[in-house]
């Protein structure tokens, strides 16, 4: 027996899982882990993507501190985050509403789920038309009730909210599906026990049903936070960050600095990406800590 065969024979059980994990680990390393470190490294250079890299230390970060658009983007990301969280209660309400057995309920469920299935690009286009000052439904409706039209996407005051509402549409659908699945697992006898205790309506929801939906809430929270922080497609389709950078978010600003026609500032873009990564890291840390606690608690 050769040495290799003998090692294999003796440690089969220990080696096999790693063999199965290998393709995934390789992919994850090549496309996720290594690029993260590369980005962090690049953020300390000035680089146009083709020519010489020049090490400039913290200069990119110092420039960020002076960059108004960066702070607008940061602020908008916070607004996105806060408003995106509305997807949770809205999804829950929809799920509660759709969690019944009437004829054709599946059709209604599918219809409500539909926005999540279609591409963000399509969602962006649909909402661009919806807001269009000349033929959009939104302004047609405003005029019907006697208000003057608002060019939502051209107005600095409203543009971010307009895009967020477009983003909420599929996000609510996603949360709704998560909650619908969660509601399936709710114990009917607990609800009946509570009914005997004269608990109903909001108190039933709060004290009996929501605690049972905690796993669904947790997943919905995580995907919503991540979804808000990496918002990109809708900005790109609907506003391109405008007007005058007022609807910028970090992900899109990074792309604009690093890859768009304004110049290929790889280092500066990387610095923005690192800031975004740091923010996400807070949530990922929270996520992992919670997973770890749950695993241990079992």
């Amino acid at each position, binding site marked *: 027996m050769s040495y290799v065969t003998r090692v294999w024979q003796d440690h089969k059980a220990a080696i096999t899982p790693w063999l199965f994990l290998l393709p995934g680990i390789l992919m994850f390393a090549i496309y996720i882990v290594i690029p993260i470190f590369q980005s962090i490294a690049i953020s300390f250079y000035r680089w146009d993507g083709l020519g010489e890299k020049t090490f400039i230390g913290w200069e990119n970060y110092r420039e960020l501190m002076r960059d108004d658009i960066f702070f607008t983007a940061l602020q908008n990301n916070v607004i996105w985050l806060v408003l995106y969280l509305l997807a949770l209660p809205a999804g829950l309400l929809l799920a509660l509403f759709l969690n019944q057995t009437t004829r054709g309920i599946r059709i209604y469920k599918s219809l409500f789920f539909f926005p999540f299935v279609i591409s963000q690009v399509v969602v962006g286009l649909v909402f661009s038309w919806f807001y269009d000052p000349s033929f959009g439904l939104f302004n047609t409706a405003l005029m019907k009730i006697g208000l003057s039209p608002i060019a939502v996407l051209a107005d600095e005051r409203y543009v971010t909210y307009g895009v967020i509402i477009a983003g909420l549409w599929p996000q609510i659908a996603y949360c709704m599906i998560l909650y619908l699945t969660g509601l399936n697992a709710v*114990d009917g*006898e*607990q609800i*009946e*026990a*509570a009914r*005997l*205790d*004269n608990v109903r309506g909001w*108190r039933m929801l709060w004290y009996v049903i929501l605690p049972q939906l905690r796993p669904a809430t947790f997943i919905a929270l995580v995907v919503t936070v991540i979804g808000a922080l990496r918002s990109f497609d809708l900005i790109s389709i609907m506003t391109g960050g405008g007007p005058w950078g007022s609807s910028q978010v970090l992900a899109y600003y990074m792309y604009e600095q690093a890859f768009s026609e304004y110049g290929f500032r790889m280092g500066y873009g990387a610095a923005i990406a690192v800031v975004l990564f740091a923010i996400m890291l807070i949530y990922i840390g929270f996520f992992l800590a919670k997973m770890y606690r749950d695993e241990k608690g079992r």
Partner: protein
Amino acid sequence: MAGITLNKAIKRYGAVDVIHGIDLEIEDGEFCVLVGPSGCGKSTLLRMVAGLEETSGGEIHIGERNVTRLDPAARGVSMVFQTYALYPHMTVAENMSFGLRMNGHPKAEIAAKVKAAADILKLNDYLERKPKALSGGQRQRVAIGRAIVRGPEVFLFDEPLSNLDAELRVEMRVEIARLHKEIGATMVYVTHDQVEAMTLADKIVVLRSGRIEQVGTPLDLYHDPDNRFVAGFIGSPAMNFVKARVRDGRVHAPGLSDEAFAVDIALPPNGTDLLVGVRPHHIAIDPQGASHTLIVKEALGAMFHAYLEAPTGERIVVEVPEAEAVGLQGDVGLRMVPDRLLLFDARTELRLR
């Protein structure tokens, strides 16, 4: 003071009647057991009393009140569910006090009631635990505690012991009996286990397919069943049934014996088909005879169950004391006391008396 009265209570799902007009009187403080095979409508009937199922027809009274259309919470009942239905995110104390807290009782009163219930059920050491960290028996205790704390007039139990292992089941059965003595409230208890019914009940209600077959004390039902169903359902091991026919004013049951025997009740006309029922300990084996074949002996300790096959192919179980059973084998005879036999009309399955 709250007995329960059902008056032609009906439950209908769509066009299907599940409970067919039940009349039932449960006295104040009585322990009433609803028993019957799976799917006969026990849970449905109990849940109608609780108000968790709408009553499609008839009336339900608790005490003096007509509760037929009342909300579950307004009926003054507590229910213990088969799966316990404890709130997993609350501690034992929080589970027990939940109803009181939700209905704005003062803190001191709640604490006192939880303590009292915990004392009765020996739960004091577990009050701060979550249900997850309790055994099945302890969880069931908590569920009962939650019912007690509310101080209801009526307790409803839906197969509360069927998720427990055999040993715990006996223990909890005794516990529930003690509880009933201590609290003295009216209790309605659903089970498919006739042993539980026999041991716990003041009054047993035997249900089949949404109808009452018989109501009575455990021993009434055991000794004096109204029909073949009740006779076969109550008692363990179950009663033996063999076919018989009226011949010359006597009963001829070839599964028991070649000879027809006389009984002291009025028999229907010659040629009527009957069923003879006999409990396994009301017949004996005659080692000298050779009318039946011994198939299997089951040793239960002091008693054996002997499974016999009659020449007609019918199976008969006989309870035999250990001393007599040891040597038994091959072909044996049967000895019986005609007084101990119960006769049923083969067609209607009603008892002949």
